[in-house]
């Protein structure tokens, strides 16, 4: 290692595509669907207890990358994930982590709020724990309360935990989904455009939430909202579609660098809203 690299590492800075002490590492990740490449040669690191944002135009493979991290593509026929995806140094595809255990360590929040429609608020929050074989009432209660507090939902639902999840507003439903994901105490939380179906007030609450959750969980978010990426994220990966419509990583850097001093002219154009 040369000196400047050492210095950079001491600052905890991002060196090129890589960060110090990464929790998650992607190395030349390729995803294809029935032979059609959707994501090509994407490499970057995810720093622990930071928020990493994936930005880029629609179709640039953001969702596809996110879903490869918790192996959701396993369910898609014809989907193929190649390259190295390391969680704490262990390859999540080849390294003998059971998929179910992996998914309990890497949670996910989807674009549209998707609470389980027939379950109560409480049952929704503890569903992940129950699916994972946890029965102990005290542990369930404790995890539910902690998750709901973290999701800023405790005050409004603590008195009606038995009510149906569908009685909540859209923004509350999304926070319920965040609480549901948090209750399993994942190390990483994947969020795919978590605020795109919400109003500005709900969006702001969830953005505040993300910042507060950093000490609890490492987050990777996909967003189309440049201000959101600039406000909440620490590191930022910018993706674009190549000629053949495969998504490629254009630049990975600390968010301030992406927004104020990007290296690639295409990043400049995108963050200034000039295309995409």
């Amino acid at each position, binding site marked *: 290692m040369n000196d400047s690299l050492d210095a950079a590492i001491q600052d905890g800075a991002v060196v090129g595509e890589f960060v110090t*002490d990464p*929790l998650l590492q992607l190395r030349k990740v390729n995803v294809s669907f029935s032979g059609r490449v959707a994501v090509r040669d994407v490499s970057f690191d995810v720093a622990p207890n930071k928020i990493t944002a994936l930005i880029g135009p629609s179709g640039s493979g953001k969702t596809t990358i996110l879903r490869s991290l918790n192996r959701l593509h396993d369910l898609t026929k014809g989907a193929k994930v190649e390259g190295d995806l390391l969680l704490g140094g262990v390859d999540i595809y080849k390294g003998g982590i*059971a998929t179910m*255990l992996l998914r309990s360590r890497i949670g996910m929040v989807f674009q549209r709020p998707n609470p389980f429609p027939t379950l109560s608020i409480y049952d929704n929050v503890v569903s992940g724990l129950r699916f994972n074989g*946890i029965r102990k009432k005290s*542990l369930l209660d*404790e995890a539910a309360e*902690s998750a709901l507090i973290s999701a800023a939902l405790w005050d409004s639902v603590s008195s009606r935990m038995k009510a149906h999840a569908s009685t909540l507003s859209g923004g509350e439903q999304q926070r319920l989904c965040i609480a549901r994901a948090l209750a399993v*105490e994942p190390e990483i939380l994947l969020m795919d455009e978590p605020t795109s179906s919400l109003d500005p007030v709900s969006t702001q609450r969830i953005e505040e939430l993300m910042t507060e959750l950093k000490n*609890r969980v490492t987050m990777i978010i996909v967003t189309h909202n440049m201000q959101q990426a600039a406000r909440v994220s620490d590191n930022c990966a910018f993706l674009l579609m190549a000629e053949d419509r495969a998504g490629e990583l254009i630049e990975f850097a600390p968010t301030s660098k992406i927004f104020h001093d990007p290296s690639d002219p295409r990043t400049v154009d995108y963050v200034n809203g000039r295309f995409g």
Partner: protein
Amino acid sequence: MSDLLNTLPPDPIYDRREKIRAITAKTLRRRTRLSQLFVGAISTTLVIALVPLVLVLYTIVQRGGSDLTLAFVTKLPQVPTIGQQNAIGGIGNAIVGTLIVAAMAAAMAIPLSLILGLYLVEMNTRLARIFRGGVEILSGIPSILLGVFAYIFIVIPQHHFSAFAASVALALLMTPVITKAVETAIRGVPDAVTEAGLALGARRSVVARRVVLPAARPGIITGTLLALARAMGETAPLLLIIGATDSSTWDLNPFHSMSALPTLTYFYSNSSFPSQHRAAWGVALVLVVLVLILNVTSRLISARLSRRAQA
């Protein structure tokens, strides 16, 4: 990770995370085994269900396979004589007869079922409820009674057996099945799609025809072809009304009696000529092959259509 845990102050969340991880990992084996158990049980059931199917197919192919010549499927039957015990000719007219009866039945049942299915989904009137009840009752009627119906109302007034009467009986048999398939497929189309059409100012009937029905097409086609395959092999109603168990002509007038594969199988298997007796297996094999073609086609079409719907 361990570095991180050491440097951070003790935190209830990390405690709980450790606890949850421990239980999750500990119960994983039990949960995996339980899931394997269920998969095992399901696979066993599948095998049990497949055994009779495989045995039937094997027997039919083994005994009827040698009959399957070009002459057998194209020529007319020939009654064996003392001198030519093995000359049974072919079953060309029975194959064509089955196809004609099935096609006529489909031509009646499909439009009726489409309208009925659409009506049942779109309307919530008393009449719709009556129709729904009617469809359910119709689906429970033993097929032989449908044959009796066609016999009383078509064969008797006309004074002779006919392929047309047979196709009416089969159409009645298919209608409830296809209607159910249409209804299910249409209900599967999200409301948002219908609303998108209405919000553009389209009439409800236009939305149904141009948006909803095409979206429901894979399910409708599969249901229809399966109902058709089922009806093609139906024997009971035909025995009463199609008449020509020993027809050996190319008379394709739908209002005359006609030969068909299921009735011919029945007739041959009761025949006193050993050669016809043996040929029953060949007839059965041809019928099975036709039904199989319909089944496979319906699967291919629905796979192709639903793939296109996703793209």
